[in-house]
C-alpha cells in the first residue's frame, strides 16, 4: 500500500533531505508562461517511489489556473491528479503522457486536493516540484 505523505516543510528539514531536494523550480517555471501570474508559492518534496504527496487548495470561480509538476531536469517524470473535496477524480496527467502542465478553467469556486508522485520509470526517489499560476 502506498504511503500517503502530507508534504510539509518540516518533514524536509527533519529528515535531513534538504540537500537532496534543492533543485530549482526553473524546469517547472518554464511552464508558467507570461499570461499566468504565479501564486507566489513553491511546493516541493523529496519523494520515494511509493510515496504520494498531497496538497489542498481553493480554486476561485471565474479563474483559469495552470498547474505545473516536475521532477528532475526533464518533463514527464511526475504524475499528478486533481480531486474535488468529495474525492471525485477531476484530472490525471498520466492520461496525457504525464503532461508537465495543465490548465483548469473554474466555473464555480471549489476546494481541491492535488496528489503528486514520481513516475516509477523516473527512478526510486526524486525531488518533486509543483507550481501554480492563475489568470482571470
Amino acid at each position: 500500500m502506498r504511503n500517503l505523505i502530507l508534504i510539509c516543510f518540516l518533514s524536509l528539514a527533519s529528515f535531513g533531505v534538504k540537500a537532496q531536494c534543492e533543485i530549482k523550480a526553473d524546469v517547472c517555471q518554464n511552464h508558467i508562461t507570461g499570461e499566468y501570474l504565479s501564486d507566489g508559492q513553491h511546493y516541493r518534496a523529496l519523494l520515494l517511489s511509493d510515496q504520494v504527496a498531497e496538497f489542498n487548495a481553493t480554486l476561485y470561480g471565474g479563474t483559469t489556473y495552470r498547474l505545473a509538476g516536475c521532477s528532475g531536469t526533464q518533463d514527464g517524470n511526475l504524475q499528478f491528479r486533481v480531486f474535488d473535496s468529495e474525492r471525485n477524480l477531476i484530472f490525471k496527467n498520466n492520461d496525457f503522457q504525464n503532461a508537465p502542465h495543465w490548465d483548469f478553467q473554474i466555473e464555480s469556486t471549489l476546494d481541491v486536493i492535488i496528489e503528486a508522485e514520481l513516475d516509477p520509470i523516473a527512478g526510486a526517489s526524486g525531488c518533486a516540484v509543483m507550481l501554480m499560476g492563475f489568470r482571470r
Partner: protein
Amino acid sequence: MFNLPSPLETAMLIEEVGGHFNESMLNPVVDAGQYSVKEKQAMNLGVYGADLGYCLIYNQSQKAFTLLATTKKLGTELGISPALYKGLINRFEGNMENKDSLLIFVSELNRLSDEYLKENESEDLIAMIFYGGWVESPYFVSELSKSLDNAKLRARVGEQKNTLENLIGLVTQQNVDGRFDDILASLNDLKASFAKVNATYSYFEPETKPDQKLTIIKSKSSVELDDALMEEISNKITPLRNSIITTSAS
C-alpha cells in the same frame, strides 16, 4: 501541504466589481525597523505584499514602488538575498507604466522569496508571511463591503472558509514550540464564525480538451452568509489585522 490563494486574486475581484482604490485601507508605510521581531516582520511582509498587489491592480505604480522598498527592507531583515530585490527593482523602475509586467515581476518575487526561505529552512517565517497576506484580503473585502454590497464580494468572504482551514494547518505545522498559540487561538475563533457559513457543493462531470491541455471544471458551489455573519467576521478580522500592523512604537 497547504495552498493559500494569492492576495492578488482578491484584489483583482475588488477591481472587477467596481471597488474604488482606497489608500486608507493600506498599512501605512513605516520604518521597517519598527517591526523588530522576526515573526512580526514576516507578517507585515505578507501585509505589504498584499497591499503592493492591490496598488498595482489600480495602476498606483508609484505607491507600489514605495511599498516595494518597504518589502525589500523587511525581506532582507528576514534573510532574503538583497540581490533578489535589486534585479526586480531595476525591472520595476523600467516598466512603471506596464501594469501586466509589474504584476508578473511581483508575483515572481513572491515565488522566489518563498523558494529562498524554504531552501534556508525558514518555514516558520513563510507561515507568518502567509498569515499576514491572508488576513489582508478579507480585511479589504470586509472594509469595502461596508460601502458596496456586492454578491461576489460577499461570496469571496464565505469562500475563505476552507482557505482559513489551510492557513490553520500551515501555522499548526510550524507551532512546534507553542509560539504561535495566540495566533492559532485567534484563527480558531475566526473558524468558529466561518463554520456558520452555509456552503453547498455539487459535482458535475468536468470537460477535458486535450488539444488545449485544458479541463473545464463544471461543478457548482455556493456560499451564503447574512449581514450579521458578515459583520461578525469583519469584527474579528479587523482587530486581527490591527494587531499584525501595530509597531513597537505604537
